[in-house]
């Protein structure tokens, strides 16, 4: 009983870490540019297919594939921002959202045309055999995914805290005008933000595709990650991480206690309940109203 429960929690935490990574992508872009990018899940899907092609098609070693996927995914983020988002930065926020939804339809159907709609197996370096230490049962894959995700979060944190570019990005998020006056190229920061968000999405894709599935609809995982970001408080980085992890664990546990159908919606029921009590999520500040 306890073994099953703990293994459910650990594997939920693994999925939750990936949700958290994707949620981070949402929040970083939102903080820096005030845009909600509904194509965020598509970065995950696209990088899954990219690494599949590099691994299976070209037989490139795993480490190189990982680096290549991150770079390519980041590049995709920059291109998407330049072509789809930047021309309408002054438009109503909903129009930008619809533009990113349109872009996600294009990416998803492109993947469908190239790879078809069958589920493809993406290899992973982590073993799926269960390991047991005391009461806790887990697989190397769970631990690998959790460790990789945490490592990325730490690297990101250090980048934002310690580097000059990171400071410029934080400044832009606080006030674009002030950042510009201090000599920060806001336009370059926008591109960089999209690149980083897409690259994180890319890592998430490589991590999650072997666990769940790899097909053109993998991008819909973005909806869950978005729910995680909202649960934590949209715009809060700790919120995105905690919200994503919480979502993963609760989803897995409810799958254990109830049936698969309930598993799919339990997180949304929880989300609505949390929002009723805390309308701006767990870590979100109450929205400032301009009068």
């Amino acid at each position, binding site marked *: 009983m306890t073994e099953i429960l703990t293994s459910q929690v650990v594997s939920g935490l693994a999925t939750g870490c990936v949700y958290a990574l994707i949620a981070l992508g949402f929040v970083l872009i939102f903080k820096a540019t005030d845009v909600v990018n509904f194509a965020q899940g598509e970065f995950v899907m696209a990088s899954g297919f990219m690494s599949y092609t590099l691994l299976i098609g070209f037989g490139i070693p795993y480490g190189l594939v990982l680096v290549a996927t991150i770079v390519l995914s980041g590049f995709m983020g920059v291109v998407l921002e330049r072509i789809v988002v930047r021309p309408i930065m002054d438009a*109503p926020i909903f129009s930008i959202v619809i533009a990113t939804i349109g872009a996600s339809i294009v990416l998803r159907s492109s993947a469908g045309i190239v790879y078809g709609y069958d589920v493809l197996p993406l290899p992973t370096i982590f073993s799926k055999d269960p390991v047991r230490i005391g009461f806790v049962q887990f697989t190397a894959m769970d631990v690998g995914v959790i460790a990789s995700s945490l490592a990325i979060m730490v690297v990101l944190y250090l980048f934002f805290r310690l580097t000059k570019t990171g400071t410029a990005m934080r400044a832009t998020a606080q006030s674009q005008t002030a950042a510009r006056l201090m000599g920060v190229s806001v336009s370059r920061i926008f591109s960089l933000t999209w690149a980083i968000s897409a690259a994180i999405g890319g890592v998430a894709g490589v991590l999650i595709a072997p666990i769940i599935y790899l097909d053109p609809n993998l991008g819909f995982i973005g909806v869950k990650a978005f729910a995680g970001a909202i649960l934590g408080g949209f715009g809060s980085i700790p919120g995105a991480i905690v919200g994503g992890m919480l979502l993963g664990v609760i989803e897995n546990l409810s799958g254990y206690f109830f049936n698969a159908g309930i598993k799919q919606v339990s997180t949304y029921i929880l989300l609505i309940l949390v929002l009723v009590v805390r309308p701006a999520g767990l870590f979100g500040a109450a929205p400032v109203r301009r009068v």
Partner: protein
Amino acid sequence: MRWRRWLGGLALVALGLILLILPGVADNYVLYVMTRLFVYVLVALGLNLLTGYAGQVSLGHAAFFAIGAYTAAVLAERWQWPSVLCLVAAALFTALVGYLLGLPCLRLSGLYLAMATLGFTLIVQEMLLQLAVLTHGSEGMKVQPASLLGLTFDTDTRKYYLLLVVTVAMLAVARNLVRGRLGRAFLAIRDNERAAAAMGVNLARYKTIAFALSALYTGLAGGLSAFIVGFLDPQEFSFFLSIQFITIIILGGLASLLGSVLGACFLIFLPELLAGLDVWQALVYGLIMVVTILFMPFGLAGALRRYAYRWFGIGAEPMIPRRLGH
């Protein structure tokens, strides 16, 4: 100035005549597509009242649509209620659900509201599967055609006229509502909640009214759709449908009745026009969607109004606030 009004009236009469004689000239498939268009126009009107006018984002309209459809279907199949009563009950019950959903949503705005309503859509879809006693779960549900005063709406022509009449009537209702006290209150809430409250607009009351009214339109559309399609598949009422609905009103134009109609035309006609493209259909559809929004960030109606003003001096330069629901 007067000739312009005459011109507008003339165009409207011409359009009305075309819609009236269409069943005489068009084939059944065109009529079926038009009927679907009317259903989507009804939903778009409802959603635009809530999101465009009152500024409350909703991704919950697939759920309202489903509730309307299943209410009508269950009443008709299980208790053999007359079609009219089924439709009225579907609209009213959905409005009640909308009102109840509006209550917890009072504190939410913007993205949080969008996510909460999206969650509602996913929960309702799952309930359709779980409540198999009423809804037959994943098997779906057959619905007999509607009948009224001994007339059965079983042919495409009859369905077309039924929907045409209902849609035009509901369009007129919406037009009157948005131009009256209610519409002004909605716009005031959207533009600035505090200012609206200071002017005596009861925020809680009008927001829940907006939810109920919007759900009423969508529930009615769902009920009608059940009778027209004749089969309900729970897979249809996914969050993707909600995204389609919101796409309609944003592409068409927020806070615009014309925009609701144009957006529905875009979403219904475009896939039909692209049907020959096979696997490329979704790709081209997405591209057209992106390009449309890039060139018309204020939607089709916004672009129409802008160019009508710039080129012909008709109306006024449209002003649409950048932020909604903040």
